[in-house]
């Protein structure tokens, strides 16, 4: 992607002060997002992908210490005052959460909750906001929007609620949509519908999307570019097709090996041995060293820097696939 980036994140680190001591959740992560781009962030549970995204609009609890910068539209989101930050949230950068069942307020109607965003940011009247809510419900393909707009969240199914969340996120035509595991809580057929919807949104509205997921299938489906995270670090970044065709980092290779392939008979899916490390401070060696087949002395004593193995293909590994093939 050669266009001027919409969002440029540099050296983002997040540390939590917990009762058990500090926890380094994200360690010096940098990436960019171009207009109209769909960027997938993949990784296992606890790899810091959600924390990374939430820190961008500063939705993390106060126990989180965030450093680095996230420049959006010329301003650093991490240094923004609360008032200006609120003008970005929901208007420029919207967020869709993983849990559609609990992310909507049970005591307000769907229309209220969608309308609230446009009333706040665009200053619409109550009546105009309701009209806009109906349009948005239509946009996210909720049947009978005129009726649904006055319903409460408990009257809707999980998939419908996620559509409402998407409608709410799109209410002000944001430039960036952060979708944090939007399909994880939904069953497979509903998932496909939501992904279709997100693809359509990108086509029709030109919204750039950051899609956080642990599901590589989802990423392969709609992402242009993919970042693989492991234990708080970015370990690989590549255009989606390239990543699937020629993964470089042993972790990515492992992840792809763990995907069941229809038609291929396999006795057992491949797994990556060991556990994800939880660090109190940034590790001074490769985060994947303990679980890596190719780990050696260098891996255990030095931090691998990100380097380009091909154009647009970065990997933080001393022994990427490309080197071993050579």
């Amino acid at each position, binding site marked *: 992607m050669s266009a001027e980036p919409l969002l440029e994140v540099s050296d983002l680190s997040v540390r939590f002060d917990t009762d058990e001591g500090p926890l380094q959740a994200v360690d010096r992560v940098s990436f960019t997002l171009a207009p109209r781009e769909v960027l997938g962030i993949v990784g296992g549970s606890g790899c810091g992908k959600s924390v990374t995204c939430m820190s961008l*609009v500063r*939705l993390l609890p106060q126990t989180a210490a965030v450093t680095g910068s996230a420049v959006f539209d010329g301003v650093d989101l991490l240094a923004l005052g*609360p008032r200006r930050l*609120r*003008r*970005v*949230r*929901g*208007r420029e950068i*919207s*967020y869709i*959460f993983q*849990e559609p069942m*609990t*992310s*909507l*307020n*049970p*005591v*307000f*109607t769907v229309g209220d909750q969608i309308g*609230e*965003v446009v009333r*706040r*940011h665009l200053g619409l009247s109550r009546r105009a906001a309701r009209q806009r809510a109906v349009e948005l419900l239509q946009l996210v393909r909720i049947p009978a929007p005129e009726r649904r707009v006055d319903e*409460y969240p*408990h*009257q809707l199914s999980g998939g419908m609620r996620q559509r409402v*969340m998407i409608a*709410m996120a799109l209410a002000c035509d944001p430039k960036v949509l952060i979708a944090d595991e939007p399909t994880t809580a939904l069953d497979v057929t509903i998932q496909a519908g939501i992904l279709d919807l997100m693809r359509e949104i990108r086509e029709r509205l030109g919204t750039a999307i950051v899609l956080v997921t642990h599901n590589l299938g989802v990423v392969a489906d709609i992402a242009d570019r993919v970042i693989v995270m492991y234990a708080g670090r970015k370990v690989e970044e590549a255009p989606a097709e390239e990543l699937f065709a020629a993964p470089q980092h042993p972790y990515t290779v492992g992840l792809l090996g763990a995907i069941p392939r229809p038609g291929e008979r396999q006795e057992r899916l491949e797994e990556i041995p060991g556990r994800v490390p939880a660090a109190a401070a940034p590790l001074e060696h490769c985060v994947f060293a303990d679980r890596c087949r190719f780990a050696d002395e260098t891996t255990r004593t030095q931090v691998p820097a990100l380097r380009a193995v091909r154009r647009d293909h970065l990997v933080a590994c001393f022994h990427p696939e490309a080197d071993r093939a050579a």
Partner: protein
Amino acid sequence: MLVVASIVVFGGVRAIPGNPAIALGAENRDPAVIAAVKAKYLLDKPLPVQYGHWIWLAVQGDLGVDQRQLSVGHTIASRLPISLELAALSMIVSVIVGIPTGVITAVRRGKPSDYAATGVALIGLSVPHFWLGLMAIIWFAVDLHWLPAGGYVTAHHPIANLKHLLLPAVVLGIGFAAVLMRQMRSSMLDSLGTDYVRTARAKGLSEWSVVCKHAFRNSLITVTTVLGLQLGALISGIVTIEVIFGIPGFGSLTIDAINQRDYTLIQGVVLVVACGYVIVNLLVDVVYSLLNPRIRTI
């Protein structure tokens, strides 16, 4: 529900030691007089007959006459408004004090103001009404002469009326404010940690609307339930407060009736309280369903 209450009332009154016929006959222990009294009040009949007679008249709105031959219905009607006024005032005090402090302490959790308010609430919760009432009288009435020590002035003189009720209402209200504040604080803390509050923040809403709209509305649901449960405590609180402050309300009427072994009066009083309890709980349920759409649409 009310039938059960009425039977308990009836049985309970009769379980109180002491003989009303003797109490009525005063010094006159003449068996003939006592027998006449018993016959007049059906005290010589079996209990089920007495109950049937009483309840039959009660459902028609006639609670009978007390020992002084005054209509129980009228006595209650003249005393009840005084207590209702006291109850309403103390509720207002407790809501005005309890709800905002609950919200504020939840928002400022862990800060000195939170600890201070929670500490004061704990004291408010632990101190019994009667002691607080006595202290308030000594301080504000006897020492400072700010407010009258007790008594009651009818609402025809609104200022004097309020002056007389202010101290008892505050004393009674403070205890409830503490309960309300603690409840509000904990349910606000729950609400503030929910996903939908995070959603509200992600939408770019102001902190005011995140707290006072999204979190507050949900917290009210639990607080309303607790408020309904506190009603029993409010009624018993009114009884002691009225006695301490010499307010001729429903509570002091109850105490007098019990001291006099005035069966009809006690029965009438307690039946009215039971009705009131049921009605208020019904109101609480209605409010609850208005606040909680998940109940409304089932």
